């Protein structure tokens, strides 16, 4: 029998906070890049789509890492 997966509101909220954190990190990277490569400040909004894509990429990588961590932790706790 197929089991229903229930995603709690708490989990969604937590993931949104994680994504917000990642987005702020990517936005800060853009500021760093503008300063480092001496490019134009208008890139803060003209290249916002790159920042969003970068945030998504980092979020997905982080999601995979967190999932792996959870799986490993659960398997250890079952053994004990």
């Amino acid at each position, binding site marked *: 029998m197929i089991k229903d997966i229930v995603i709690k509101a708490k989990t969604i909220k937590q993931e949104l906070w994680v994504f917000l954190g990642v987005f702020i990190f990517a936005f800060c*990277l*853009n500021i*760093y*890049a*503008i*300063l*480092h*490569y*001496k*490019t134009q400040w208008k*890139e803060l909004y*003209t*290249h916002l789509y*790159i*920042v969003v894509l*970068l945030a998504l990429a980092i979020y997905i990588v982080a999601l995979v890492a967190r999932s792996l961590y959870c799986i490993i932790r659960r398997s250890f706790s079952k053994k004990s």
Partner: protein
Amino acid sequence: MQDQDNSRRDFIKAAGVGGLGLVALSSPWLKVFGDNKANSKAASDKVRIGMIGVGSRGSYHLNYLKQMEQTDNIEVIGVCDNYQPHLNDAINITKGTAKGYLDYRKLLEVKDLDGVVIATPLHMHAQITIDALKAGKHVFCEKAMAKTIEECKLMVDTAREKGKILQIGHQRLFKPTYIKAIEYIRSGKLGKVTQIRAYWHRNNDWRRPLPSPELERQINWRLYREYSCGLMTELASHHIQVANWVLGKTPVSVMGTGSINYWKDGREVEDNIAVIYSYADGTQFVYDSMTSNKFYGLEQQILGDKGTMELETNKMYSENPPQPAGILQLVNDIEHGIFDSITVAGASWVPETAAKNKGEMICLDDKIDEGKLQLIGLVNAIRQNKPVPQLMEQGYYSGLWTLLGQQAIDEKRIITLPKEYII
């Protein structure tokens, strides 16, 4: 089709009638599209054209002229060729409305003929042009202008004496990409232009199929010195004209070399050539052509200290292209940091290979047919009954320096222009 024609004219009109604008100064012949004051013919009067030489190039012009019968109030009243199959084909293109002639002199006797388009083999250009001008007809003659510099001068002198139009078929003079490029160059966008390079590479024997062997010299006339100077007159003349136009002056000397090193099939003209033209300020035009490799095709490159133009492909490259956005550079650097191989020792020398940037288009509206535009220009000029500014001179100096380039190849020495040929 009508809309397309209108947009073509609008573009040229916008480019050509600016009075003191850079385009008007660098391409003054474009005024022919803006000046509607007809001296000899009202727009309602038909311009009557005859075609002399209706082989491959001639039938190309004839097809345009037939289209223009619907849009430009002209009529092709006669077609002429001494090769009967070509003449028959031409009469078919006109659906029998044009009369066929085997002798061009008979066509020139037609009283209400206003002008002729000449697309014969090179060695016939001068005689037919001079006869047509003397018969009171305006002339459009295919490039290259003629086979000798004496003939070129005689053609110009006759046109001036008779007050008739003599236009040489350098269609790039009407191509929007080139017109825009010259405007940019004159405005300083490329900085100081110190070299122009051009090449035209093919990988074929340049032969046309023969219906019978005795027609070899008549059909493949480009391969024999009696009729043509081969790669110089049939191909290089285009790019020499553009080089002169870009620099706004003509060369002071030319050196060159050439040989038959691949197609040893009885031809008399070189199958590869390389020439260098020098201008008074030290600028060079370096040109080469070959027929045994087509990888690079054809191109004309204008090299300035601020940028480069590749005219045949409508591209312009800055010496200092704008750098990508900071975030993209950062991602790129991180990527290289992770994935590039680790070098044990730094490179002692990095090859200075060509810069790689995508550049930008010179002209956004490049889909305009300059082959037809030059004929529209001719018809406008005939209607106005006055020579088009600088157009004949462009054809003359291009033809002249093409032939001097061939002379440099033949005589293996640096050639300068004899003063009596300056017009």
